[in-house]
């Protein structure tokens, strides 16, 4: 009785393994189709849009804006695709994928993918004090020192802003951006004169 059961189970077990393999191949061959409203497409569009409401202390308006993406190939790919689809008449962007924060030095925007969990390690002082628009997608992004953090709320991409982090970075944040945020973390009082 037990042997019979084992034989049956074995046969079905291997058949299931085959089915899984077949599914894998069928799926793999159909992969890489175009963008729909995936989370990253919307986030990528947000990132580009944010740059219209942020002022950097020293960038020539004509120079291409450099966006670097840490630890998130998918996001880098979506950003690259969006940038390429834009009309050449609009502001130029350069998108680059990086593996180390030190490579962000000459950029204006730094997007940090979640490295482990949806938690992000606190940003080093060198990054916070440089004029980088830091953007994260993590439950604790602002705590980590980011200026903008994405959150998914009710299947929609929303974002929160830290004016304190923006103050440290010396960036100006436009009121349109603030009014669209779900949460604005105020700057400390000493910074009030720098607020928009």
């Amino acid at each position, binding site marked *: 009785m037990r042997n019979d059961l084992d034989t049956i189970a074995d046969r079905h077990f291997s058949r*299931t393994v085959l089915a899984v393999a077949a599914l894998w191949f069928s*799926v793999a061959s159909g992969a890489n189709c175009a963008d729909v409203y*995936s989370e990253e497409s*919307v986030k990528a569009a947000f990132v580009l849009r944010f740059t219209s409401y942020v002022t950097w202390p020293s960038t020539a308006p004509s120079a291409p804006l450099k966006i670097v993406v840490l630890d998130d190939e998918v996001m880098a*790919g979506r950003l690259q695709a969006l940038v390429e689809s834009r009309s050449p008449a609009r502001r130029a962007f350069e998108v680059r994928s990086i593996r180390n924060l030190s490579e962000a030095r000459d950029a204006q925007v730094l997007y940090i993918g979640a490295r482990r*969990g949806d938690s992000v390690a606190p940003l080093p002082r060198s990054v916070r004090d440089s004029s980088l628009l830091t953007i994260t997608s993590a*439950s604790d992004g602002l705590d980590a020192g980011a200026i903008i953090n994405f959150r998914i709320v009710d*299947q929609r991409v929303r974002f929160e802003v830290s004016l304190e982090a923006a103050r440290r970075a010396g960036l100006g944040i436009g009121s349109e951006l603030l009014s*669209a945020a779900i949460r604005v973390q105020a700057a400390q009082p000493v910074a009030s004169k720098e607020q928009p």
Partner: protein
Amino acid sequence: MSALPAFNREILVIYRTAGVGLFSIAIAFCAAADDLTQLSLDQLGDLQVTSVSRSPEVLRGAPAAIYVITHEDIERSGATTLPEALRLAPNITITQQDSSDYVAAARGFGGNTDVQNFSNKLLLLIDGRSVYSPLFSGIYLDTQDVVLADVERIEVISGPGATLWGANAMNGVINVITRAAYLTEGALAGATVGNREQTVNLRYGQKLRDDLAFRIYAKALQRDAMERGGVDAQDEWRRAQVGFRLDLSQAQGTFTLQGDGYLGDDQRAGPGRQDMGGANLLARWQRQTALGELQLQGFFDHVHRDAPAGGVPFTLDTYDAEVQQELNPGARHRLMLGAGLRRHDYRISNSTSLLFEPPRRDLLQLNAFAQDTISLLDSLKLTLGIKLERNDYSGWEPQPDVRLAWQPNGSTLLWGSISRAVRSPTPFDVDVIERVGGMDFLRGNPDFQSEKVLAYEVGYRGELSPRFSLSLSGYYNVHEDLRTVEFGAPPVFLPLRWDNLMKGHSHGVTAWAKWQVTDWWRLSPGVTLLRKDLRFRAGSSQVLGVAQAGNDPHGLGLITSSMQFGRARTLDITLRHVASLPDPALPAYTELSARFGWKVATEWEVALAGTNLLHARHQEYPQPTGATIRRSIAAELRWKR
């Protein structure tokens, strides 16, 4: 027994359906998207996104079989308790034995209650607080609960997770993570009224300063008694819990303080109620130092639990302190070092038939771990970890772990691992005495060893299209020193004793997918199959069969359909199939749960939810241990502002 082939056929149907469906995705959904760059911030924020494309597991990149139950999954499931929410994970088996008793197991070894083997190879963490009971290494799921509306996610990791999570994480880890207080601002009041149970949830959260927020909550549940052999099982369950969480988030670091208190009773057959209660307080401090992130955590946890006649009431106090430091010694290394100590202080009130000798103990557990994640190439990461853990019974136990993860692109992860994990001895293995008619019937074994596993795992996780993600994992476990019950010395052969005279191997596969069929419809199928091949070592008296190690189903399958109609209405249906149990035997069962939710106004949501809808009565564990579970239907009302 005929249920097993039927089950496999179902799986094949699921796979075939998914395969055919994929071609439809390729045809129907690969049209170019609108130019998102033309949209305003507000318009972008209004777009509904398919979070399937970045299912949290893919995002994690963790080289382990990890399933993530999201906040939204829980909210839409109609689950009212933590174990019901855990049913959403395909890589864990949840068995409801009676009104309040749920047993959780990953990769088998869910215990065999009738021969006093309990599920004891799983770790449950609630916001970093380990809640398995050191008395027998199992989890009292009826003492653990959270306000499900405040849960950010539940990570269900099958396979050894010892290095980072620690003791008892032999076959899996369940990691419940609640939202930080600043994400739960405002008031929430919810109630469910049903034919089997009633619940009330209240929560209020507020931001005190920009960097300081808190929430307080209360939760209560009353569940009717089930049936056993057609008569009232007298297991009516009542439970109430209050708690708070405070989060301070400053630029230099974060501090969290949280705590709960709860009371419950579960009226068992026979005289009296089984009262239980407890309280806990946890503090966690994270800070960015020049070296890397530093985390300090401490908690205190008190539990008391009465028992029906013949059982043993106990109180247990747990004190725990942990430190964890991240180091980045070079660009290619990420080193985590940690150490912890935990003291369990328990007091058991022995009965005449069940005794622990000694009835009081202070158990001290120490651990230290190191884990280095080395980037061999940009796409190839090797993780070497070891945890050394000391317990009062078997001393130091090394638990090493090697993992290799290859991420050829941002949407594909292939991983493999070899790890050793142990389930260390407990008072129930060493100190227990069971008496029948004044005579010792079973005694613990002072030489009881840890149960050990050497686990080989491989896995794949990938986002195959923006609308389809897939996870596959397989394992081969080599088990040593599994617990057996053995005859005593002749001629009486009593008392029986525990020993470590079983070994063998087990293997299995788990697969799940998230498929966003259309913008408003998502299908999430999942399946787990497992086989165990256990045998007794020489010298075993083989009093009981190998099923004493776990009366586990050969598999389970789940498929959830989640539909969204406009902004306000949702319909979620989950079909689950659990294969038959071998010994004691129980046929396979299939059940269905469904929930229709409607946000009737900005602040109000109503819902109708049903669980175990297919049958008026079903059994998840054989009688008499398992009670008969009846169909339940409930109306929900929620107000949130």
